[in-house]
């Protein structure tokens, strides 16, 4: 067993916090493209739906009362898309949080390895 001096730098909390923050930042940056590409795809799909609605209304295939009802449905589709984006964002947050906790876990594990 190594001799333990009480004035030893056992655990540099500032360094560990900096590493944790760096890990969170890297994880979010690495996965941000996923959120962006899905959000862009949702926007394109919304545009196509609205174009189809406009076309059918102009040709008389879709009466105004049905158009109103379809526009109400659009709110629900938008809500569904927001829920999908929320899941992807939360998944990234979960990965970042666990990666940061792993940094802390490893720092504490090192103390056991060095001091015991």
């Amino acid at each position, binding site marked *: 067993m190594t001799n333990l001096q009480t004035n030893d730098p056992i655990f540099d909390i500032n360094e560990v916090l900096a590493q944790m923050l760096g890990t969170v930042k890297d994880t979010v940056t690495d996965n941000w493209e996923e959120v962006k590409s899905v959000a862009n795809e949702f926007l394109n799909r919304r545009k196509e739906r609205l174009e189809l609605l406009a076309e059918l209304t102009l040709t008389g295939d879709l009466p105004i009362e049905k158009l109103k009802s379809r526009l109400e449905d659009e709110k*629900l589709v938008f809500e569904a898309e927001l829920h999908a984006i929320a899941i992807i964002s939360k998944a990234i947050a979960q990965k970042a949080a666990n990666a940061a*906790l*792993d940094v802390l876990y490893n720092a504490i594990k090192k103390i056991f390895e060095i001091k015991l």
Partner: protein
Amino acid sequence: MLLQSRLQIQSLLILLALSLSFISCKVQLVAPYDDGMVQQIETTAKEIDRFYLIMLEVTPEEENGRAYATFQEQYINFEVELNSLLTKNKVKPVNEHSARICEITLQLWRKYKAEHKEQDYLSDGEIKLNRKTFDDLFFAMLSAEKGKQIANNPPE
């Protein structure tokens, strides 16, 4: 002095052991990725797409070719499938977003089914709109489910 140092070290070790047991628990904000669920979503999406395409291409608008009765059984089968997806999503912990996407899909499925039943007819335009709406809802459902894979990937 020596005794005090040992007490400090002991306290520190107990604290570290407690921290260690605490941080070995992982944060969970989303339900785990479920490959079976992805397969079910993809199959249901494909079959609903086929359902509307056949309705559009094969059955005539004229002479009541698109009467509700012709499609009633398929409507029921797909509603059962959507109900099954909703139930599976609801029973999973931290999965309220996926459950809500399923709820919305089921709500619109029932609404469009009721419209078809009431009119006993669907125009080409309505079929195109319904097909597009469900295609987009299933895309949202799949994006959400596949997004959960991000959380499961171990930190680099």
